[in-house]
């Protein structure tokens, strides 16, 4: 199986926002098909890291995207599900209008093109949200909205999917099904997924690798190793059972054997 951006390499990334150093010397390698969970305390710079990858915040250092031929790519397709979508809940905007805004130039006030409707339907059905297509966005529940945004983020299929605490404000069953969907999508499309989360239990169960971030990368590596690390256990007050759970899960890291990350500095 091939994938678009074989890996994402972040080198010495730093960001200063409003005179405050939010990130310093962040080095990260993300392989394709890998689900990396980014964990850390509040204010650790997790969201800033995602926004830096998106190119939204000014930063020092580099973000490189390499394709399977080890060639640099300037602008890979990045899907993004923001942490908390602030919008006007009274807006007269349907789910389909959102897809049109992201994917189509044909003005929504002249109606939607059949091609766009089909594309939106397929993506929504992939996250079991096909029935929401004509609904007004402001009417959706928190879980429905996250599924719609996930569907939007995977249309077209991105090289890299960034999820910023996508389950805040959703009930336990919703969280479980959301993570299941992300895992399925990752397997189906061979996506690289970066998941910012507070939920270590989900990270232990789903993530291939875990990045413990606090202004800079404190620990990164396979999920079981990171969860067994004393710094992580102390920071989150967790016992050995999460690391045990993580080591019991099948992992799929290290697939990108062709990536010569050393070639890029």
């Amino acid at each position: 199986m091939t994938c678009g951006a074989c890996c994402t390499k972040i080198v010495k990334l730093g960001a200063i926002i409003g005179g405050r150093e939010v990130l310093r010397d962040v080095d990260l390698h993300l392989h394709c098909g890998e689900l990396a969970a980014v964990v850390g305390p509040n204010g650790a710079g997790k969201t800033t890291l995602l926004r830096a990858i998106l190119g939204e915040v000014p930063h020092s250092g580099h973000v490189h995207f390499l394709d399977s031929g080890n060639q640099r790519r300037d602008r890979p397709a990045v899907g993004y599900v923001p942490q908390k979508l602030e919008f006007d809940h009274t807006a007269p905007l349907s789910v389909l209008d959102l897809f049109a805004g992201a994917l189509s130039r044909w003005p929504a006030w002249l109606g939607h093109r059949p091609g766009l409707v089909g594309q939106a339907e397929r993506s929504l059905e992939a996250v079991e949200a096909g029935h929401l297509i004509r609904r007004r966005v402001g009417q959706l529940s928190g879980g429905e909205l996250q599924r719609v945004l996930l569907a939007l983020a995977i249309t077209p299929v991105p090289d890299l999917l960034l999820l910023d605490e996508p389950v805040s404000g959703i009930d336990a069953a919703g969280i479980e099904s959301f993570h299941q969907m992300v895992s399925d999508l990752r397997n189906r499309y061979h996506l690289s997924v970066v998941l910012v989360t507070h939920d270590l239990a989900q990270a232990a169960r789903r993530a291939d690798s875990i990045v413990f971030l606090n202004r800079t990368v404190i620990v990164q590596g396979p999920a079981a190793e990171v969860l067994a690390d004393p710094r992580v256990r102390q920071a989150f007050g967790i016992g050995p059972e999460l690391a045990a759970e993580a080591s019991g899960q099948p992992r799929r890291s290290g697939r990108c054997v062709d990536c010569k990350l050393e070639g890029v500095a």
Partner: protein
Amino acid sequence: MTGWESWVASGPLEWLQFGFMRNALAAVLMLGVLYGMLGSIVVSAQMSFFSDAIGHAALTGIAIGILLGLGNPVWAMAAFAVLLALAIIRVQRMAAASADTIIGLFMAFAVALGVVLLSRGGGFARYTRFLIGDILGITRPDLWWLAALTMVAIAFLAFSYNRIVLAGFNRPLARSRGVREELWQGAFAALVAAAVTISIQWVGLLVINSLLILPAAAARNLAKDSRQYLWLAVGISLASGVAGLAASYYWGTASGATIVIIAMGFFLVTLAFRRK
């Protein structure tokens, strides 16, 4: 008198027997489309206060136009309004203060500057026509300008509507989808500035912003998606324009203000039938 003219003169369309009323009707129809379309985005993107500030900036534009010795101040108005619009957006993005504070202070400054310049020598009364507006004074060349601007607005919204709507919904999301929202917001703001300044002499500074906002606000009460929203806004804008113009003829009132009162009626009625 031809048969058609005598029919008009005797019926409920009696007010259309005058050339200036027919010109005014043509203007109201175009303004209806223009303001309905632009207003739908102004309201969605929460730019109501912004467009209000642009309307007030016209006063300064008039003053600058007169200082420069221009016969028709509309170009100076448009130029100043566009500049002010872009300045507001620029300062807002620097996040020096909250968005409404920035608009408020720019608006107060523009109005103060306009009043200072126009009141030199006690001559402010000459310019009150810009406060009330006079749609009956619209000329044929004016109508062509208005038609051109309406076409530009339609073309602009055919080209960029989806992206502007997405940016109005959520900026970071729009940016992550490759929408250059700063560019589109600037272009749209310039278009609103041009539309407001060109029509201020006909509609009046005091009420022009309501003309932009009320039809869209009424449409929002009913619309479920962006297509319904835009067409309802245009429809309500056209209906209040035509009804308001006719009413102003019979009541002998200022047309702009009368149109706004009818549009407010639409808003209240749609509020009662608000979608769940």
